C-alpha cells in the first residue's frame, strides 16, 4: 500500500510540476526575434558570416566565431548613422562611413558612435552546428 501511496504522491507531484511548467510557458512572451542559422562554415576562430535574412532592426546580422562553441551575433547597423559595419579585423569592427569602432561584444571603442551595436543572444547546437539567434521580449 505504501508503494501505491508513494506512486500516487510522485504522480501528483509530476502532474503539479507539469502544470507549473505549462503555466510558465503559457505566460512567457514569445521572443521579439528568433532565427536559427547554419554556422558549419565557421570552422576557425575569428571566422565570420553575415546573415542573408534581416534582423530585428532590419539590418543583416554579423556572426563571429570566437571559440569552439562561442559565437557573437551583432547587428551590422552602426549606431551612429546606420551605415553597415565591416566584419572584424583583429577583433575590431569598423564602420566605413565615419570610422566608429566596436569590439566583438559590440561595445563602442571609438566614436563618433555613442552606443554599442545591438546584440543577439546566441545558443549553439553543437551536434547540428546551428546557432539560434534571439532577442527576448
Amino acid at each position: 500500500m505504501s508503494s501505491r501511496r508513494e506512486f500516487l504522491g510522485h504522480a501528483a507531484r509530476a502532474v503539479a510540476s507539469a502544470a507549473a511548467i505549462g503555466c510558465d510557458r503559457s505566460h512567457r512572451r514569445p521572443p521579439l526575434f528568433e532565427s536559427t542559422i547554419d554556422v558549419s562554415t565557421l570552422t576557425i576562430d575569428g571566422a565570420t558570416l553575415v546573415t542573408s535574412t534581416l534582423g530585428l532592426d532590419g539590418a543583416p546580422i554579423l556572426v563571429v566565431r570566437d571559440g569552439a562553441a562561442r559565437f557573437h551575433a551583432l547587428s551590422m547597423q552602426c549606431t551612429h548613422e546606420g551605415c553597415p559595419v565591416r566584419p572584424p579585423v583583429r577583433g575590431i569592427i569598423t564602420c566605413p562611413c565615419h570610422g566608429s569602432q566596436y569590439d566583438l561584444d559590440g561595445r563602442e571603442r571609438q566614436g563618433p558612435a555613442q552606443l554599442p551595436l545591438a546584440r543577439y543572444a546566441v545558443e549553439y547546437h553543437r551536434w547540428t552546428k546551428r546557432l539560434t539567434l534571439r532577442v527576448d521580449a
Partner: protein
Amino acid sequence: MNTGALPVSRRTAMVVAILAIVGSPARAQDHGGRSSLVFVENTNSGDVSIIDATTFRVVGTIPVGASPDDIVAAPAGDVLYVTRIVHRPDGRPTGTGELVAIDPGTRQVSWRIAFRGVPNHLAVSPDGHRVYVTVVSGDYVDVFDPAQRALIDSVNVGTGPHDIEVSRDGKTVYVGLIRGTDVTVFDAATNRVLRRIPFGANVRPIALSHDETRLYVQLSQYYGFVVADARTGKILRRVDMPMPKGAKTPDTLPVTTNHGIRITADGRYLIANGSMTDLIGIYALPDLRLVATVPVGRDPNWVTLSADGRRAFISNRGSDDVSVIDLASRTEVARVKVGRYPQRMTSVALPR
C-alpha cells in the same frame, strides 16, 4: 606653409564678434528687395537655425525632429528640403529616413515623406521638379517628385552614396560613394549610370565646376582634395591642404579629415574646409593657387555662400557656431552661435 596673400591669424579670429542667439527677429537688410538668409541644419538639436546673412544674427529656429542630415533650398528659394535620419527612442538608427519640406517664408514644415534606408545628402534639379536623396545604408539614390510628394525612382549607383550634386544644366547627377571609392555619374533624364570615376579612397564632399569640366573631391583620411576631369574621369591633381603654423600632419588621419568644399558663385574661387585643423583654404581657380587660409571654429563641416555671393558661411559642428567669411578681405567677420552640432547649410534670398 604657404598661407596665401591675406592670411588671418588666430588672434584676429579670436576678436571677431561672437554673436549670441537672439530671440527677437532682426529684419534682413534689403538686397534688391530680397532678404538674404542662411538656414543651418543642427543635427543634435533637431532644428534649423535661420541666420540673417546681413546682420549675422539668428532670427528664427525651425524644429524638424532629431538628426537632420542635409538641407538644400529649391533653386526658386520657395522650398527647403531636409533629409532626416530617423532614430529609435534608444538612440539607434531605425534604418529609415524622412524627406522634409519646409516653407522658408512661413518657417513651417509643409510635408514629410518617410522611406526605407538611411539618407545622407540631397540635391534639387535646377527646375525644382526632382529631389535626389542619397541612401548611404544602401547602394542607390532615391528620386522624389515634390509635386506628387512621392518617391518615383531609385538609381543604383554603388555602395554607400553620400554627397550629390546636379550639373547646372540639370542633365547630369554626380554621386560620391562613402563606402565605395567612386563618383558615379548618372543621366537625369533616364536615371541610367553614365560612368564611374575612381578616386581610390572613400569619397566625401564633392564640388562640380560651373562648366562641368572639373570635379573637386574630398576623401576619407586625406588632408586635401583631388581634382578630376569630370568628363574623362582622369585624375589631374592632388592638392594638399596647408597645416596651421607649427603643426605637423599626424601619422594617422581621422576618417573625416576634411568635409565641405564649394566653388564661389562667380566661379573664381574654391573654398575647402580643413576639418581636422579648424581652418579653410581659399584657392583661386583655375590654377588652384592658395590665396588665403582662414581659421574658423572647431571641426568645420560645410560651406555655403550668401545669396549675393559676397560671403561664405562655414558651419563649425565642434563649436556649435557658424563662421562668416568676407570673400573680399578673406577674413572671418563674425561667428554666430547656432544649435547643437550644426552641419549642412543652404542660402536663400526671400522676397521681403
